[in-house]
């Protein structure tokens, strides 16, 4: 039952990810991206990363996508003009690069089965307890630096978005 659920969520995630790229309308892309984040959250749950599943929905589907939708509304983009054309050379080269990337990494990673053997059956690191303990002891400095990063981003955004007075 649970493996079936994983493959179901994986199919939805891949399908919505490809539709995000193919969709002409930016609003549809945003909605499909939210669906992709929800299926990824389900996969996190199945991988026993409970806290991260909740964070995925709160931060990505909640905060980040609302920001995206606000900007799409603000810019009034709507339907993209059909004259968004790439040169055939550019298009072929891009497709070639994507396929080479996909096949290359899959060959490197998935053919070498000596690295991936039996995994641990028990897992006790998915909850808030373990994550919080690691975050505030071993990874305290990166945690503080992340807060500084958020402050810098806040100041930068306010400066960039404000209307110039001159």
């Amino acid at each position: 039952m649970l493996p079936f659920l994983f493959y179901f969520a994986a199919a939805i995630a891949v399908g919505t990810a490809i539709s995000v790229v193919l969709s002409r309308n930016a609003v549809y892309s945003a909605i499909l991206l939210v669906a992709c984040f929800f299926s990824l959250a389900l996969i996190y749950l199945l991988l026993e990363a409970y806290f991260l599943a909740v964070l995925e929905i709160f931060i990505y589907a909640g905060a980040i996508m609302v920001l995206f939708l606000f900007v799409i509304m603000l810019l009034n983009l709507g339907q993209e003009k059909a004259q968004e054309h790439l040169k055939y050379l550019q298009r072929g080269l891009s497709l070639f690069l994507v396929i080479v990337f996909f096949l290359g990494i899959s060959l490197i990673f998935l053919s070498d089965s000596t690295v991936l053997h039996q995994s641990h059956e028990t897992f006790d690191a998915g909850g808030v307890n373990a994550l919080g303990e690691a975050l505030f002891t071993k990874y305290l400095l990166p945690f503080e630096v992340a807060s500084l990063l958020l402050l810098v981003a806040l100041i930068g955004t306010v400066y960039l978005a404000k209307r110039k007075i001159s």
Partner: protein
Amino acid sequence: MIVPLEHVIALSLAIFSAGVAGVLFRRNAITIFMSIELMLNAVNLALVGFSRYYNSVDGQVFVFLVMTLAAAEVAVGLAIIVAVYRNRQTVNIDEINLMKN
């Protein structure tokens, strides 16, 4: 683990490739930005899979930090897109060539 680690990595790889394709094919700056989010999520998925596989919490801490970074990056990036749109009335990256030459 309910599924082999290879399957998690394959899923992560597929989503990352979709993001790469989005960056290479699309000309709309906002869609390109969403593709970057897709790539970040693919990396997060791989980290969660490895964290489960090695029974260690370290990977999940990195996912936490990547999420923080994604939030900061989206805020700044969208502010830049809004500023560019205000000046050029377009978000097509082919027409934004102020710094060319």
